[in-house]
């Protein structure tokens, strides 16, 4: 599903290139549940962003479902992304001005899904995550766990093949974190490919493959 070949990412500071990622080569098949681990600054988020097409690699090749992502233009990449991926963030990134219902609806709007179908999809999702009672609340009226639940719901509403999660439980209590991880596990069993970046050994225990990064190098893949 995902093939990374010699992916590198650096930032230019003055005349020196500061590397965040170095020569990462990685294959990920459909249905996997992967944790990317490593200390702060190891390049976890960067790798996740590149895989999620939120950022470009400086060097190397990346193909997703057989499409050479590094050669695609913005429009093609956006449609590929829109079709197949969902993203979850440590700090949720919900749109503050929109209610829970409207936040869930937004990705569907961008996918140009018709009104009635959109409505039923949002209602199904609200049901599935048991947040029907919160649908008219704004993000700042929810607890962190509840906000992340909405974030997960939003990421999953269009049934993506691949779920990317960047420290999904980083801002949550352990109980709330466990709920999210149990949810991930269930989703993976239903067929969704999941890649999460995490610090937590507890969280990584849910996954079946652990990739460790250190100073931008791929240290181990088990």
């Amino acid at each position, binding site marked *: 599903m995902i093939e990374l070949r010699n992916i590198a990412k650096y930032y230019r500071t003055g005349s020196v290139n500061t590397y965040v990622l170095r020569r990462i080569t990685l294959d990920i098949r459909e249905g996997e549940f992967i944790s990317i681990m490593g200390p702060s600054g190891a390049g976890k988020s960067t790798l996740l962003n590149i895989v999620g097409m939120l950022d470009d690699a400086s060097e190397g090749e990346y193909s997703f479902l057989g499409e050479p992502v590094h050669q695609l233009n913005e429009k093609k990449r956006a449609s590929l992304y829109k079709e197949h991926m969902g993203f979850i963030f440590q700090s949720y990134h919900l*749109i503050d001005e*929109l209610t829970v219902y*409207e936040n869930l*609806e937004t990705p569907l709007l*961008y996918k140009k899904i018709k009104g009635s179908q959109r409505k039923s999809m949002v209602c199904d999702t609200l049901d599935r995550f048991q947040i029907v009672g919160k649908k008219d609340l704004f993000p700042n009226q929810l607890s962190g766990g509840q906000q992340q639940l909405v974030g997960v719901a939003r990421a999953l509403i269009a049934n993506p093949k691949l779920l990317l999660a960047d420290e999904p439980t980083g801002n949550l209590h352990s109980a709330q974190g466990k709920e999210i991880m149990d949810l991930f596990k269930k989703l993976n069993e239903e067929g969704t490919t999941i890649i999460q970046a995490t610090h937590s050994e507890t969280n990584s225990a849910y996954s079946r493959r652990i990739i460790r990064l250190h100073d931008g190098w791929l240290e181990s893949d088990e």
Partner: protein
Amino acid sequence: MIRNYLTVALRNFLRHKGYAAINIVGLAFGMASCLLVLLFVWHELSYDTYHPDHERLYRISTMGGTEADVSLIAGCSENVTPHLRENYPEVEQVFRIQPERPRTVRFNDQAVQVDNIKYAENDLLTMFHMPVIHGSSTGALERPHTVVLTRPIAEQLFGVDNPVGQTIQIDTAHYEITAVVDASPTNTHLKFGIIVSWSSMQESDWRHSWDGGFFKTYVKLAEGTDPDAFESQIATLIHEQIGERLAENNRQAILFLQPVSDIHLYSHCRWEAEAPGNINNVYIFSVVGLIVLLIACLNFMNLSTARAASRASEVGTRKVVGAARTQLMGQFLGETLLTALLALAIALLLVDVSLPAFNGLAGTGYLFADVFNPVMMMIMGGMVLLVGGVAGIYPAFVLSSHRPAHMLRQTNAGHFGGRNFRRAVVVIQFALAVIMIVGTMTVYKQLDYMREQPLGFDLKQKLVMEMPRGAVTFATHNTMKYEFTNHPAVTAATFSTSVPGRWNYQWRCFPTGEAETNMHTINWYGVDRDFLESYDIELIAGETFLPDCRGAMCEGILLNEAAVRTFGWGSIDETPGKHLWAENRPVIGVIRDFHLKGLQSPVEPMGMFIMGEDFRYLTLSIDVNNLRPAMTFVQETYDELIPDELFNFFFLDEDFDRQYRAEQKLGTIFGAFALLGVMIAGLGLFGMASYSAQLRTKEIGVRKVLGATVGNVVNLLTREIIVLVVTANALAWPVAYLAADEWLATFAYHTSLGWMTFAWAALSALAVAVVAVGYQSFKAARANPVEALKYE
């Protein structure tokens, strides 16, 4: 999708009410002033363009005088019209008009004073756009003693009744009303109150002469006529008739055409029907209006951009959930366009509210509905598109082009906003504001200067009555003066053909025995013997009029210093004893120059003679401490002596001040716009300050933890603004100086540009800026540092 955008836009408005209000209201004020200026410009440019086939309408004017002293005169000999009618097939229609003095018009026991009475021929009614309300325009002005009323006069005398067929009395003569036409619009140089048929005009020697007799004459050329060819055909018409006489005196009288729609702005002939407009003012006001709009637009752009930058996270999130770049651009552009549209709505409201004041100031008669003509609508649409588009394009492009990973990481959105761009905006705004403040202050300084300059005569405590024609004769004028001074509060009375600030005779003369090329146009006042003393005009050489002269003894004339200079006589003391053509009158004395007109123009050469007729103005010197009894006495005396006419008077100082009406108007408009500009700029700065204080919360927190006092922090936040405003001043001063200097140079007598003007402009701009920023800075500086640092 649209609903989603609208929801976000609306909730953003509500969440940042203050910001949204500043943004929208500022823009609305800018748009409103721009719309008002547009209305003014539109009005000025629309003069006499509403007549049918207006591009074929021309006035025939005369270029007369000698080669050394050419003057353009708004009219031509009365004989031109019949000549054109008979001999020129390309003249489709032609008419003459001649203004009459203000008269009392009566119907039964009703009487009104009508200022705008003109004699005219029937073609006027069909050549010019004059909607007929009652009667018919066909032949309405053919017979003698017929009149056409305009609606306001008809309503004053007859209410809503149809007055056609009734008879009114003007002075002592009776006239039959043949039609009522609509009131003259404000955008015509020819305005009418009552139109009297041409054949009713009194016959006299000076009519029907090819030489002189300047009657305003209008022609409509047949379709397809080349106006240039026609003009060259008629140019020498007068010379063909009286060429010899003109050549004898070395004079010329060349006819030329003026397009009717150009007269208001471009014609500066002698004896125009009304004071012409000024194309320069049209330019100045356009620029000023645009400046205010520009300041408001910059604000809008600046604040929109700043706000958009703080929405980086929303943009990132939208990208993450699948927004394409074009969709995001659409969202931001849509939002700014919507805001601009809202501002336009408020601007229209402001226009509606300020329209009466505007009409008074600009001399227009706009209704609110007039704002919605197609051209204005297009301009408004363009304004919204431009303002909304430009303000939206920056965030639309910049924000949507970043990779989402950057956007989401962005904790300090300020980096997106382009600090230098914002600094530049503040500098430009304040520079424009400073230019306008300097402009306003210069106009007022010049007005004060002109009003305070000694005029060379005594303007104060003078009540002037304009006497009806024929009411006073040489035989009765002394008795009348005696009657009016028979009260302790009336200290003097004097008759004259003119008073300063009003129309006066202008004749050409040359010194007897000198070359005819030394012929010049001289302003003449016919006066009685008390005039010099009453007006306190100084005699500096020779002697004044003899107290009791008869016949030839009264022929002596007085000239002013300017006239002595004009004739090139050099010495003032040697002037008495010279003689002036045409009647070979002896110059008996020289008077000190005094201002006949406002200080815009230099003192012109003028002369005085003892009057024998045309007792037009009676000036009474009044003791203002006893104004009320004096006024009662004057009115009673008037009613007793001239019972048939309405009592009409003015105070000389007030009347003379009308010379400065154009400058006063300019000052008021400039002042209003300058105030608006400064306010909008200040408002924008206030918005920006609150925004940047918010951005720098963390920095301020850290500084306070490290021991910064409130004073240090306020200083930190305001220092930059002060630097920007000072820069703005440095940029604005040279521009303002040049513009103000150029404007002042158009006045014959003008004030100087002191550094105080610039200092005040700088200080007021600085004060506005410091107040706008200070409050926010102080608030930010006073905040608890722990609060600030908790943010991360």
